[in-house]
């Protein structure tokens, strides 16, 4: 029966982790899909979200989950400033679409270094953590899980579904999807590409900030924690296919299962190796992503 218990543990653990992974990647997928700029500072925005939650909890006693209300406007503002003052200029100085891509990619690396090191100067490189208010434990198929983790998974799924509905049924969402599909066509029908890009970038930053909030409830924080999440998000975006939200959720669960399985059965150091092997397979077999048209 030990193997059956382990099986259920990996099943539930994988779902919980997968839901979170899909939230981590969805912001990046949105940003890249609309702006065609690969924000490799994505994980650092996540780190900022985590720190905002940490400080609002330790300084003001705001419940970590409730702090998402604080995180959203702050992340939106930071990302908007970054986009308008730095990233948007790339479009002007670049001669071709390819140049926008590689120039913004390297720019985001510079940005990543700046965010990480400003955070280190402000908050030191020490690991910080807080005791998130626990909602107790729950027994699923004979395996004990923290209720907090399940709440995290549920919040991730709710955010993903809301985003999907927003993109599918609102005018703004449709304008964003139009920009993903046909940037030039979107411009022709009167969509202001700059506004849509700035909004999408900032919305993506909110999503990564929220992912940071959720992650901060169960792990310790550090100014350099973002890089590993950036990697997971990058792999997931390729796996899902750019602009594919279905792929993002399915891919999130897939990677979540594999990551949890690796952590549980082999060793957590090899998680990245397994995730990377997935990337190699997908690049060889279906580089456009699982759900791309």
């Amino acid at each position, binding site marked *: 029966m030990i193997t059956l218990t382990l099986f259920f543990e990996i099943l539930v653990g994988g779902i919980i982790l997968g839901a979170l992974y899909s939230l981590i990647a969805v912001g990046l997928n949105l940003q890249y899909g609309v702006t065609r700029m690969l924000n490799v500072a994505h994980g650092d925005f996540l780190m900022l979200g985590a720190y905002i939650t940490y400080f609002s909890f330790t300084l003001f006693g705001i419940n970590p989950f409730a702090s998402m209300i604080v995180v959203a406007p702050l992340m939106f503002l930071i990302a908007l400033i970054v986009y308008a003052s730095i990233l948007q200029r790339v479009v002007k100085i670049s001669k071709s679409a390819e140049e926008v891509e590689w120039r913004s*990619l390297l720019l985001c690396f510079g940005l990543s270094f700046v965010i*990480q090191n400003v955070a*280190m100067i402000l908050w030191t490189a020490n690991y910080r953590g807080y005791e998130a208010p626990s909602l107790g434990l729950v027994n699923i198929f004979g395996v004990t899980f923290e209720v907090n983790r399940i709440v995290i998974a549920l919040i991730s799924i709710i955010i993903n579904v809301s985003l999907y509905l927003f993109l599918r049924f609102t005018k703004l969402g449709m304008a964003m999807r139009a920009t993903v599909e046909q940037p030039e066509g979107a411009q022709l029908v009167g969509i202001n590409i700059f506004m849509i890009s700035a909004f999408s970038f900032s919305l993506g930053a909110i999503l990564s900030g929220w992912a940071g909030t959720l992650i901060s409830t169960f792990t310790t924080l550090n100014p350099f924690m973002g890089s590993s999440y950036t990697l997971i998000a990058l792999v997931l975006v390729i796996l899902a296919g750019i602009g594919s939200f279905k792929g993002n959720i399915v891919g999130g669960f897939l990677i979540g299962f594999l990551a949890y399985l690796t952590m549980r059965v082999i060793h957590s150091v090899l998680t990245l*190796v397994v995730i990377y092997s997935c*990337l190699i397979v997908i690049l060889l077999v279906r580089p456009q992503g699982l759900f791309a048209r």
Partner: protein
Amino acid sequence: MKTPIPTLLIWLIFLVVVIFAPFFLPRYYVAVLTNVLCWLGLALCWHFFSGTTKYISLGSAAFFGVGVYLTAIFGKTLPYYFILPLACVINFLFAGGVGLVTLRLRGMYFAIFTFGLAELLNNIILFWEMKVTGTRGRFVTPFDIYYPMVFITFGIILLTLVLRKSKFGLALRMIGENEEAAAHFGLNTTLYKILGFALSSALIGVIGAAFAPRWGYIDSGIAFNPLYSFMPAVMTLFGGTETMLGPVVGALLLSLVEEYLLTVLKEYFMLILGLVMIIILLTLPEGITGRVVKR
């Protein structure tokens, strides 16, 4: 456009200066010069592939680290001058494999894949050392690597000078200018990209293998330091990607700045590097040599 004779002459003078430098320079400056030569070699390798084709490699540290580890593992059993070509061959094959997977696709996939490569190898080696050999790092017999570095860097300079004018170098430049046109022209672009990347990475691996004895002790964090991925790129972009002068000027200036900052403002080094990257990318689209050297 400049004629090749003065270029060669300038290189020759530089070579002579570098060869005799240890006879009149204090030890500290020779050590600095070793670093400068290392960065110069790395920047030239990066420029050879990524600078010309615009397929941005963010994985130089992976190949550098493989070289470092080869010296660390075989340093006691094999002679140094045997390890260097070994590092060349192994990294050529390794990078060729990476290229086969990623270079058929758009540049963004290549950048993403190489971005995680150093971190991936870092984790694999960490796991290997922890579980299999039960160690944390390795000791390398330290010795002065100044002349090997001179030999390798000037070898790379000569090789890139020659290759840039060859059919191979022109093919890479054409891919950078307009890949579609190059393909229509009948060029097997994927093959040239893979070969270019493999060669550039093989040489980066040689530099890593040659550089390892500088440290008496290495671990995966030192060998796969992401700085080795970013600095060559930043140096090349700072100098300019159009001619070979770009990476040379960029590497000479920025490696000295790096040396200074690391001794004076160590805590702020990465912050400054990030800011420099942002400023270069936004204000110097052609690099500092771009204005001077017009094709």
